[in-house]
């Protein structure tokens, strides 16, 4: 076989770098949406590669629900320091304090949906015309139809039935004042690809992804970490388990799986054998068949 071909990881990397450079070239004020999760860490790593030896040209924007894993915030601050990048924080707590949104009630209350308002407010306040996300099409069925360059109207809304066609690698980021774009450089990566690449490049990720001992509660078919925000039901019991997280979201809704995988090699092997999707442990997606689509239409990540 000819030596002039790329393997799948190199091709995905090359595609993502191309998309990131297009974003830089087509927009005035783009940012990377940084959650501290592996996908946004990966996007940040790819942006570093795309513009080397220049500094990463995008500020990182974090929508802070206040319900964080402390490890995530530490990781975020470290990476900002290492890259010398600018950090923009949109605070859900502030949105609540200002009366822009109201806290959900009840034991399954989360701040997940509240993030939409904070995110859109931060985009508007910082005059951001493109927010780069780590969304992947394999994650969820509504995401399977996302474009690399995804248009949002001046209310920040996504209109999935009326998307711009995207052909070859020609991206159309033209927009009017007040509208913005979401860009998804790792659209074509699967969870397995992400892990294989993180392993190959030896990218630093928060310790939460590795198996560790933690106080947890069994709820909605997964281990929810005990935290100051968790309201326990009478029948619920806090136990200590060796777990790890497959995705990172709010500490109140991110369930862990029991695991002994404490190295990148072991995680990749474990993911390869997994029989459930990674979002299967996210209670925000379990609310209905179209939970993700409904949130995305309104402006969610």
């Amino acid at each position: 076989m000819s030596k002039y071909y790329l393997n799948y990881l190199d091709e995905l990397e090359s595609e993502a770098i191309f998309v990131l450079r297009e974003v830089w070239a087509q927009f005035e004020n783009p940012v990377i949406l940084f959650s501290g999760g592996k996908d946004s860490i990966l996007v940040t790593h790819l942006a570093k590669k795309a513009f080397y030896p220049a500094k990463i040209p995008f500020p990182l924007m974090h929508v802070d629900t206040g319900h964080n894993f402390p490890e995530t915030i530490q990781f975020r601050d470290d990476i900002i320091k290492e890259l010398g990048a600018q950090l923009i924080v949109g605070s859900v707590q502030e949105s609540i304090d200002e009366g822009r949104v109201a806290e959900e009630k009840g034991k399954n209350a989360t701040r997940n949906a509240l993030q939409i308002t904070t995110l859109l407010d931060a985009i508007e306040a910082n005059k951001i015309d493109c927010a780069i996300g780590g969304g992947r099409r394999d994650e969820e069925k509504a995401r399977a139809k996302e474009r690399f360059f995804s248009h949002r109207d001046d209310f920040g809304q996504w209109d999935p039935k009326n998307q711009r066609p995207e052909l070859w690698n020609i991206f159309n980021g033209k927009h009017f004042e007040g509208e913005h774009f979401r860009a998804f450089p790792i659209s074509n990566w699967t969870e397995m690809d992400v892990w294989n690449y993180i392993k190959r490049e030896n990218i630093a990720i928060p310790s939460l992804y590795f198996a560790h001992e933690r106080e947890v509660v069994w709820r909605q078919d997964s281990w929810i970490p005990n935290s100051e925000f968790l309201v326990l039901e009478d029948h619920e019991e806090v136990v200590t388990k060796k777990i790890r997280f497959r995705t990172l979201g709010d500490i109140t809704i991110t369930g862990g799986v029991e695991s002994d995988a404490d190295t990148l090699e072991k995680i990749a092997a474990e993911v390869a054998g997994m029989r459930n999707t990674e979002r299967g442990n996210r209670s925000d997606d379990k609310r209905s068949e179209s939970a993700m689509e409904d949130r995305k239409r309104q402006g969610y990540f």
Partner: protein
Amino acid sequence: MLDNNQLLRFTTAGSVDDGKSTLIGRLLYDSKSIFEDQLEAIENTSKKKGHEGVDLALFTDGLRDEREQGITIDVAYRYFTTPKRKFIIADTPGHIQYTRNMVTGASTANVATILIDARHGVIEQTKRHAFIASLLQIPHIIVCVNKMDLVDFSEEVFNNIVSEFEEVSSKMLVKDVRFIPMSALLGDNVVNKSENMPWYQGAPMLHTLETMHISSDINKVDARFPVQTVIRPQREGFIDYRGYAGRVASGILRRGDDVTVMPSGFTSKIKSINLHDKELEEAYAPMSVSITLEDDIDISRGDMIVRSNNKPEPSQDIEVMLCWLNNSPAKPRSKYTIKHTSNDQKAMIKEVVYKYDINTLERNSEDSDLAMNDIAKVKIRTTKPLMIDPYRENRTTGSIILVDDATNETVAAGMIV
């Protein structure tokens, strides 16, 4: 998965009736790419709808409207991996009103799969799908003759369909066509070899996809490097660094190559090729790299670095096979932004030479209206020259899109003749 595994992108065109969704569901299910929670969700929905067993077709329905109506409206992307390759499926609807979605899905595909219902043989829709595959120059076509179980797995039926299809495709520009008799519903010849059709000597679909030779599909002759952006680090150690960032569209560029910058015509030599902190000897499509040159030349986004002995044609008058993608039809002599690689210019559609009747595939030079889903040969005039190659030689430097400045929407996609 091995480190040298390739990525293969294929498109499926077909309607609900062809069993396209069932085929994709079957590929994913039999290659063990469906997760348990996904399967559970489908089982529940199947039960709710009163289907017997698990309806694998439900697996590919994405948006709420589609689930309600039971049709695929947009292009949906699916992923699966086998020990041999990673696959991306661009799943598109097959009806005539979704021609634009099929064109979109086909634009990046290495392989087109065309579904035929064995009971009906080659129908108008089949011809349209083959036409789109040839128009978009997809290098390989797999014709899936499905529902063989409903024609008693008859070899004769299959052979007749093969002849019918070959008659149609002989008039088109298609290179590599393969035929597979199958039953997606029962799983015959999708992942596993059919026991019902011992007369079929070929491989099942998945094995065909896994072993198909695709690395020669990329143009390795004409070195083309459209510049996306210029990297100028304002930091110590790199004060004089000026890197031209881009993705190799085709061909191979090596350190020391004599290059010409288009459209200015300035010449220089490649000083270095970088990917992050690595120095490379050469770069080839589709690698994203940064290139530095020996001489300080004014280069910006939209320029193209090419080898001096092999240059594209700078042209302001281009002939294009255009597919109209937008609800509002083209306005006569109206102006658009044309996007070609990293270059944006203003452009005007000067003339519609002929339009295809998408049903009969006949050319009609009387009708010059361009509405949604129309495919036509047009003449376009641009304000400044574009560095073009014919689409059949180069899918990247031979393709364009048109953007309506009034709405900013992508209204058309074109292949340069």
